[in-house]
C-alpha cells in the first residue's frame, strides 16, 4: 500500500507528486497519459514570487527550456472610452504600479513547465502508473482502493488493476470525477463566458508589464512573455467569443487592437486561439475520508488574475508539510487530522481568491451600461474598492498560505 496516490498527470498532478515525494512518504502518480510529449499548449501560467521559490526548491525552475518572463509592472485601465472628457479622467486615475525589488511574478509557457516537471519527477522516488484511468474506488478504514482501467490497452500499469493508498490526492481537474465519487459537491454557475487564450506579438516591447483592460464585455488581460510576445486571456460572452474564434487572423488582430488600444502598437496574432469555457464554481469541502482535492479540482477560479496554478502550488506545499507532521506523529496519511488540517489551512486562501477574482470580473463587466459609460463614476467606484491591493497581494503571492516550500525550503 502506498502512503499517497496522486491522481492526474497535468501540471498540478506531476508537481504535486514531486512535492510530496519530499515529505518522507511513499508516493504513486496515476496518470492517463502515455506519451509525455503530446501537443503544444498555447496557454501560459502565472507564477507568483512564492511559487517561483517553491519551483526553484523542487529543481523545476532550472529545467525550464525557455526562461520565465518576469512581471515587474501591472497596468490596469478601463476599456477605451469614446469621449475626450473620459480620456482626461482616465489619465487622472492611475491604477498602475510597479515594484522596484524582485519581480512580482513570472509567466511560463505551459509546454515548458510540463516538460520541466516531467524531467524532474523522473529523478524522484515516485511510482509511476501511466496510461490508466481510475474506474472506481472504495474507501476503507485505513485508506482507499482505486480500480484502474487500462486506456486503449497501451497502459504501463504493470498489470495492476488496482492500487491501494492511505491518501488519494485528486488532481483530476475542475470536473474531478474523484471528487464527485466522494460526494464533494460542486456548486456551479451557468457558463455564460468563454476566455479566448492565445499568443500575441506586439510591435513595441511590453517592458515586463502585465496589462488588464476591463471592457464592458469582460476583461482583456495580457501577460508579458519573452521578447515582444504576450499571452492573451480575453474573457467574452459566449456568442462574442465564438465569433472571434471563427474570424480570420486579420479580423482577430483588429478586434484585439480595438480592445486594447494602440499602447503597444500593432498586435499580431502569433498562435492558435483556444477557447476556455468559464464556469465559476465552488466546493464547500475539499476533503473526504481518505481523499483530499487539489488544484482545479479544489478551486477552479477565474483565470483573470492568473492565480489558478499558484493555488495549486500552495495546496502541494501545505499538504507536504502536513504529511511530514503526520508521519512524525507516527500517524498514517489516512488519519482524519491531516485532512481536517488541510481543509482548514486552505479555506482562507480558497475563499479569498474565489471572491477576489470573481468580484474583479463582475465589478467591471456586469455593471449597467449607463453606469459603465459614466467614466468619472466608474473610476470613483474603483477608487473606493481595494482593487489595487487585491492585485498587488495576488502578485506578491504566498501571503495567505504558509508552508516550507513557499519559502523555498524543502518540507521537513
Amino acid at each position: 500500500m502506498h502512503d499517497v496516490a496522486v491522481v492526474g498527470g497535468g501540471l498540478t498532478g506531476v508537481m504535486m507528486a514531486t512535492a510530496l515525494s519530499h515529505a518522507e512518504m511513499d508516493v504513486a502518480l496515476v496518470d492517463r497519459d502515455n506519451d509525455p510529449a503530446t501537443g503544444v499548449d498555447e496557454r501560459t501560467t502565472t507564477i507568483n514570487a512564492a511559487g517561483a521559490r517553491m519551483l526553484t526548491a523542487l529543481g523545476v525552475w532550472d529545467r525550464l527550456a525557455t526562461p520565465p518572463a518576469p512581471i515587474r509592472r501591472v497596468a490596469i485601465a478601463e476599456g477605451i472610452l469614446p469621449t475626450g472628457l473620459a480620456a482626461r479622467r482616465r489619465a487622472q486615475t492611475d491604477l498602475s504600479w510597479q515594484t522596484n525589488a524582485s519581480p512580482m511574478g513570472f509567466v511560463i509557457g505551459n509546454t515548458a513547465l510540463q516538460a520541466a516537471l516531467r524531467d524532474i519527477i523522473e529523478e524522484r522516488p515516485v511510482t509511476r502508473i501511466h496510461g490508466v484511468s481510475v474506474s472506481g474506488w472504495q474507501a476503507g478504514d485505513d485508506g482507499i482502493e482505486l480500480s484502474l482501467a487500462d486506456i486503449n490497452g497501451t497502459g504501463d500499469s504493470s498489470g495492476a488493476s488496482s492500487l491501494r493508498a492511505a491518501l488519494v490526492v485528486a488532481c483530476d481537474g475542475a470536473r474531478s470525477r474523484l471528487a464527485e465519487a466522494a460526494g464533494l459537491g460542486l456548486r456551479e454557475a451557468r457558463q455564460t463566458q468563454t476566455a479566448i487564450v492565445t499568443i500575441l506579438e506586439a510591435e513595441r516591447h511590453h517592458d515586463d508589464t502585465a496589462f488588464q483592460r476591463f471592457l464592458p464585455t469582460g476583461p482583456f488581460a495580457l501577460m508579458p512573455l519573452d521578447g515582444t510576445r504576450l499571452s492573451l486571456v480575453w474573457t467574452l460572452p459566449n456568442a462574442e467569443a465564438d465569433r472571434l474564434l471563427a474570424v480570420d487572423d486579420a479580423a482577430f488582430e483588429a478586434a484585439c487592437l480595438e480592445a486594447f488600444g494602440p499602447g503597444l502598437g500593432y498586435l499580431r496574432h502569433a498562435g492558435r486561439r483556444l477557447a476556455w469555457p468559464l464556469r465559476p464554481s465552488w466546493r464547500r469541502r475539499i476533503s473526504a475520508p481518505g481523499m483530499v482535492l487539489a488544484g482545479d479540482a479544489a478551486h477552479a477560479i477565474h483565470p483573470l488574475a492568473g492565480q489558478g496554478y499558484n493555488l495549486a502550488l500552495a495546496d502541494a506545499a501545505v499538504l507536504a508539510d502536513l504529511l511530514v507532521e503526520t508521519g512524525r506523529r507516527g500517524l498514517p496519511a489516512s488519519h482524519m487530522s491531516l485532512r481536517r488540517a488541510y481543509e482548514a489551512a486552505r479555506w482562507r486562501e480558497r475563499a479569498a481568491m474565489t471572491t477576489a477574482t470573481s468580484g474583479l470580473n463582475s465589478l467591471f463587466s456586469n455593471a449597467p451600461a449607463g453606469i459603465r459609460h459614466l467614466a468619472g463614476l466608474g473610476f470613483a467606484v474603483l477608487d473606493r474598492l481595494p482593487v489595487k491591493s487585491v492585485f498587488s497581494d495576488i502578485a506578491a503571492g504566498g501571503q495567505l498560505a504558509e508552508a516550507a516550500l513557499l519559502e523555498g525550503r524543502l518540507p521537513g
Partner: protein
Amino acid sequence: MAPLHAFAPVRIDYILDSVRRLGTSAGGRLDGVRVLDIGCGGGILAEPMARLGGQVTGIDATPEAIAAANAHADMSGLAIDYRCTTAEALAGSGVQYDLVYASEVIEHVTDRRLFAASMAAMLAPGGTIVITTINRTLASFALAKVALEYVLRTVPAGTHDPARFVKPAELRDEFAGAGIMLDDMTGFAPLPARQIGGNGFIRVGSLAVNYAASGTHA
C-alpha cells in the same frame, strides 16, 4: 471513536516532547524504546508509537478492546504486544519499560495510589511517565460529562464518573508518593469546529478541563 482520533495528535506531540525533555529518547523517534500503553483501547496511541520505532506493549482490561486492537494492528502491519491485563497485575511480573503512559485512564481507576505505584515500579531508570486525564472542576463537569455524554453524545452516557476526575495537585501528590515527580503539566483544549486545525486540540495554559502531566523517577 472520532473524538478520540481527533484528540490523538496533541497527545502524541506531548508524549514525544516529554520523552525528549526527560532524555528517554532523542530525535523525535522511539527506536529501541520499550513502550507500555496502559488502557490502550483499540490502539489509537499504541500504533503511532510502534510506527515511530517503539517496542510497544498495550494492555487493557477489556477483552473486546484487545481483540479490536490486535485486528487493527494486523491490518496496519504492526507488531504490537497486546495483553488483556491491568497495570497492577502486570507490575507484579517485574517487567520494565522506558515509556509508560496512561491516557484518559486514571479517571476510571478506583485505587489511584496503587495505580501510581504500579506505573512507578514498571518505569525503567531514565524512563518517562505520561498521564492525560480530566480535572475535577465545574468546567470539566459541564464539558466532559454533560456536554459530551448527554448533549453532543460523542461518548456513551455513563462513560465518566465525575467523582473520580482528578485535580492536578492530587495527581502530583499521589505520584510523588510513588517516587515519581510530575514536573510538567499542560492543558488541552478543543478548537472550534472547522476553524484553524478544525476539530483538533491544542495545548493551553489552563488545566481546568483536559490536561496532561509528565515526569520521571524523583
